[in-house]
């Protein structure tokens, strides 16, 4: 078990492919060429789509947006370990994970453009909507998992949150419940080193976030979050543990937010160019691409970029073409049935 081999209390971190693209084959999870290429494609799509979202925001065509740049492996790796019946509970910086789980890019753009229809996912997609109040999705993920147990499902619930969320009471209450009831949860903390401007050292005096799992009575593992192989391997093991009824796991994805917290933020206020440049060297896409090239799997990246670029443009056009909500749209889902006084408030908009 990886969780036995890598002890967060000793600062041991799981890494399979290093910054130069060199792999530790002893730790390498079994992955077909197709799976590898699909993962790379999703990460690259995320990078391009993310860049486009920021541009759209600058042009006033999309609202405040939290960029994913630098966290693509941290997002996609865990999602790859999920099956169709598994749930994905996200926070707000998980575009790549959602793409993997089947939430279309145009839907995600629609949400960031400010339309609730962007929270309507294809039928059967087990993904909850974005959660803005930090950490509050954590106990919900535990409830979803508990319901799965009661309903005798074999599904696993993967929940993402950030390093800032680990300071919230909801993180503690959620993980504590999960430990007590041994729910089939995988908790992925995307430790991108910052909660807006506040460094990880101001969130906790613990040496790692992963080691907090020990206090809740289940395993935790520290993983290089810029290594897609490591993120996939750790999550796959955790998901299998959960599926076998052996309870939850906490995965700390050690990564870095290469861009701003959101488009309303300016990272130069609280960190140096040198620090960011150092992390650009560890870019998860560069690392993965170097590995794939060395294996001879990735040959024509330029045409892949072109193809994905077109997808991104198409998604943006599609999202922008979606009409704004009508009066009835914003009223009629307050309750299953509209109370008479609400109908009065809506006035003539009701059909």
């Amino acid at each position, binding site marked *: 078990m990886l969780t036995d081999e890598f002890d967060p209390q000793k600062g041991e971190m799981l890494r399979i492919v290093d910054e130069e693209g060199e792999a530790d084959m002893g730790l390498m999870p079994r992955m077909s060429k197709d799976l590898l290429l699909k993962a790379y494609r999703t990460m690259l799509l995320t990078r391009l789509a993310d860049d486009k979202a920021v541009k759209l925001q600058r042009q006033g065509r999309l609202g405040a947006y939290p960029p994913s740049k630098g966290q693509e492996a941290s997002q996609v790796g865990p999602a790859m370990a999920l099956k169709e019946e598994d749930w994905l509970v996200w926070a707000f910086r998980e575009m790549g994970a959602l793409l993997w789980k089947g939430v279309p890019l145009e839907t995600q753009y629609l949400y960031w453009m400010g339309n609730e229809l962007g929270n309507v996912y294809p039928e059967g997609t087990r993904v909850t909507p974005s959660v803005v109040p930090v950490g509050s999705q954590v106990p919900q993920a535990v409830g979803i998992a508990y319901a799965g147990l*009661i309903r005798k499902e074999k599904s696993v619930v993967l929940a993402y949150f950030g390093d800032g969320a680990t300071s919230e009471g909801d993180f503690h209450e959620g993980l504590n419940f999960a430990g007590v009831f041994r729910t089939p949860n995988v908790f992925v903390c995307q430790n991108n080193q910052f909660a807006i401007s506040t460094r990880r050292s101001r969130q906790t005096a613990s040496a790692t976030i992963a080691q907090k799992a020990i206090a809740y009575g289940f395993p935790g593992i520290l993983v290089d979050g810029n290594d897609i192989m490591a993120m996939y391997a750790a999550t796959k093991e955790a998901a299998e543990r959960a599926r076998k009824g052996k309870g939850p796991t906490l995965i700390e994805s050690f990564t870095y937010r290469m861009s701003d917290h959101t488009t309303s933020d300016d990272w130069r206020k609280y960190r140096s160019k040198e620090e960011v440049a150092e992390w650009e060297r560890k870019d998860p896409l560069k690392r993965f691409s170097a590995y794939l090239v060395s294996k001879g799997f990735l040959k024509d990246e330029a045409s892949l970029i072109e193809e994905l670029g077109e997808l991104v443009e198409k998604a943006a056009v599609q999202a922008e073409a979606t009409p704004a909500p009508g009066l009835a749209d914003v009223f009629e889902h307050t309750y299953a049935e509209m109370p008479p006084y609400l109908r009065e408030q809506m006035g003539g908009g009701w059909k």
Partner: protein
Amino acid sequence: MMMNMVQAINAALSGEMERDPSVVLLGEDVGVDGGVFRVTDGLIDRFGEDRVIDTPLAEAGIAGVAIGMALNGLRPVAEIQFMGFSYLVLNQMINHAARMRNRTRGKLTVPMVLRMPYGAGIKALEHHSESTEALYAQIPGLKVVVPSTPLEAKGLLISSIRDPDPVVFLEPTRSYRMLKEEVPEGEHLVPLGKARTVQEGDDVTIVGWGAMIPLIQRAVADLKGSAEIIDLRTISPMDSHAVVESVKRTGRAVVVHEAPRSFGPGAEIAARIYEGAILKLEAPVERVTAPDITVPLPKGEDRYYVNEKKIKEGVERALRF
């Protein structure tokens, strides 16, 4: 069968758990102990610890876990031990339970019930006497229900469990064991959002709910003139139609609640009466409420709590105007 409110709520829970395997209970001490007021007594033996869940002591966690359960096909009934501890659940209830339906345009919903004992009048510890129903009633997407009798409690709770929206179910602690009445075994439904006319009358309309209803009944027993008593049952969505129509006939209205006056439900009820019946009014809407102070500890509680005398005076002011 003659039942008090505790027994009626227990019967509603066990009936629904029997009928629908997706109904689960969770909360602090709800299992082995049967709840601090024994509302869930015996249910763990009948339905097992997977469905009657003794949770860690964590109110926000209870609400958050219940929301997750509801998202994945269960109908959780979560208990908060006292309303004063329910403020910890506001983030979950306001930011998620109330919004999920609208947020996802009806794709994901949260059919859960958050039960809690509420109200003063039992000389309890601090934080055990809250009546802050207006906090919840202001939130679009939440329903707020308060039963006034055992029979009402059974019918309203069953409807709340079956309701497709999140319901905050406030159980007047003072009424838990105050009165027994005949409660049918088996199904008994009282629709949400519909007020009940407790007593018909022509001279004044008195609106109340929960533990105020028996107080109002006693207060007007020897009134000169006839009072119509309306039990609101559901604070939100409010049945303002029933209230306004009654006031149109009587021309006078008194709202009674044990919550503090300012920004209380009485203000909203008064506003709706003015909007709907101003030309029929012969007196300003009278509010009989607690003063805008912190609930005193037991020795001072009588200075706070609404009583028959205060109601009587309020009704007489409305009639005299």
